[in-house]
């Protein structure tokens, strides 16, 4: 199974600012995904990070708010832009190979004041 790390593990930010979260996988993977986990709610997919092309966003999430990069097969970033308190959440990166299950990183806990 892939080992996934995320940076930062947690942060406290002021409204109106932006935070970039990094996701590093210890091996090349086909798919990388970004999820949000809000208290008492399901994990919700934000977008699929595509290597070498624009990310594919789920309904309700837009590129201007959550720009994503994936420069290679082991690394991706998610930026939470122009933050508001409603963006306070846990952000999770996951990855999978072809025909494999998804493995998750430890998450980034974000609090926006």
């Amino acid at each position: 199974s892939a080992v996934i790390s995320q940076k930062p593990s947690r942060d406290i930010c002021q409204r109106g600012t932006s935070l970039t979260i990094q996701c590093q996988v210890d091996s090349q993977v086909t798919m990388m995904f970004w999820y949000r986990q809000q208290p008492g709610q399901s994990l919700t997919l934000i977008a699929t990070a595509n290597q070498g092309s624009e990310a594919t966003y789920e309904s309700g999430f837009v590129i201007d708010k959550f720009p994503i990069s994936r420069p290679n097969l082991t690394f991706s970033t998610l930026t939470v832009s122009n933050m508001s308190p409603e963006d306070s959440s846990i952000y999770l990166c996951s990855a999978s190979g072809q025909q494999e299950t998804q493995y998750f990183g430890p998450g980034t806990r974000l609090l926006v004041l």
Partner: protein
Amino acid sequence: QKEVEQDPGPLSVPEGAIVSLNCTYSNSAFQYFMWYRQYSRKGPELLMYTYSSGNKEDGRFTAQVDKSSKYISLFIRDSQPSDSATYLCATQGNFGNEKLTFGTGTRLTIIP
């Protein structure tokens, strides 16, 4: 209606008891069914996955899927305090390259 429904609990049982965790889903296109365990302040950890209907056993854990009733179960035998965590069911249409659709998670506490 949510695509995957899961009782959020919390659920508390004594050590050694059999635990039954359940989910229902609405989309008949789902073919793969997963159970993840999430400890406090950690990411979800894959416990087991099954394809289509049937049972799968791994040690003290048994996953069961009934596609006719769209019902997913996880049984934990001889429960241990270390099993205390949030358990998330998830479904997927095509293995690996599709998003996972999660239930809300059930918080489980095993009382020593």
